[in-house]
């Protein structure tokens, strides 16, 4: 009889532990971000044509030229991309080299976007079917990757860069050897 009682109390404890786990998980903020599994790996080979006249396109070889860079995945039709424009500008003025992958974009829309929000990029590649975006594990716009001089992805920032994120990205660039 004693063993049965112990067993029943064990059941109660197990149920309480389960409900405790539910309560804890439900109280945690939902993580909507899908992290790229490519962080720490070499960026896959690609070669994108220029997205806009006057600026070069972007290839994986450009990302292995010895200098760490920020790779901004963006689009002129993406609203949060407008929000992060001043921060990209600040990063660029602070010495960061920023290149971009324009997702499903048109040259005339990009020209208008740059005229309105400024252009911090030294190169913009056109990714018309999101092929490069999918190959680096990016799941939306905007996202910003820190890529070191050997073309290895060192860090991924998901969503728009807000002012408080600028020092972190600068630190990640430093870590990558800038």
């Amino acid at each position, binding site marked *: 009889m004693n063993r049965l009682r112990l067993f029943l109390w064990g059941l109660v404890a197990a149920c309480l532990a389960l409900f405790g786990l539910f309560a804890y998980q439900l109280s945690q903020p939902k993580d909507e971000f899908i992290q790229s*599994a490519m962080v720490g790996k070499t960026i896959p080979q690609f070669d994108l044509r220029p997205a806009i006249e006057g600026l070069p396109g972007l290839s994986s070889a450009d990302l292995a030229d010895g200098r760490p860079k920020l790779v901004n995945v963006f689009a002129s039709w993406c609203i949060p991309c407008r929000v992060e424009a001043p921060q990209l500008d600040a990063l660029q003025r602070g010495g960061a080299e920023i290149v971009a992958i324009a997702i499903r974009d048109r040259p005339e829309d990009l020209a208008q976007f740059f005229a309105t929000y400024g252009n911090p990029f030294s190169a913009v590649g056109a990714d018309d079917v*999101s092929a490069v975006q*999918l190959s680096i594990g990016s799941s939306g716009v905007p996202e910003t990757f820190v890529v070191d001089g050997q073309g290895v992805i060192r860090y991924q920032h998901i969503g728009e860069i807000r002012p408080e994120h600028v020092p972190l990205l600068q630190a990640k660039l430093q870590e990558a050897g800038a």
Partner: protein
Amino acid sequence: MRRVAILALALAVAAPLAMPVLGQDSLPPAPYAYTELPDPAQEAQALHLMQTIRCLTCQSQSVADSDAQMAGDMRHLIRTRIAAGETPDQVRDWLVERYGDYISYEPTVSAITWPLFAGPVVLVLLGAVILYGRLGRRRRQAGEGGQ
């Protein structure tokens, strides 16, 4: 005069509808986003794979069910890779390598998920053992009572 006023009102109401939807790109869908592969066998393989890959921007749909731009681009990627001779498993592995298990819209047995699959089996077995024990005891008691 009144007719003009009505026309003006109608225009005022309709004008915002004619504006491009913000947050949407204006490029046409990728070639194989909505076009089936010419080879029916390959299309069947691709379609089956699409139904097991999660849409990244909608999250609770497979890429086969979603009209999101990115889902269209993922269907294009899947179809072109299948058409190029890759097996569905190779394409699936390629995606998992980039997005982790999250991308799979089909439950798979892994180091974390195996209790979900083993749990019900264990519970059914446990139930059978308890039932057997109880019934056996009752039968014995009935047998003793009959003596």
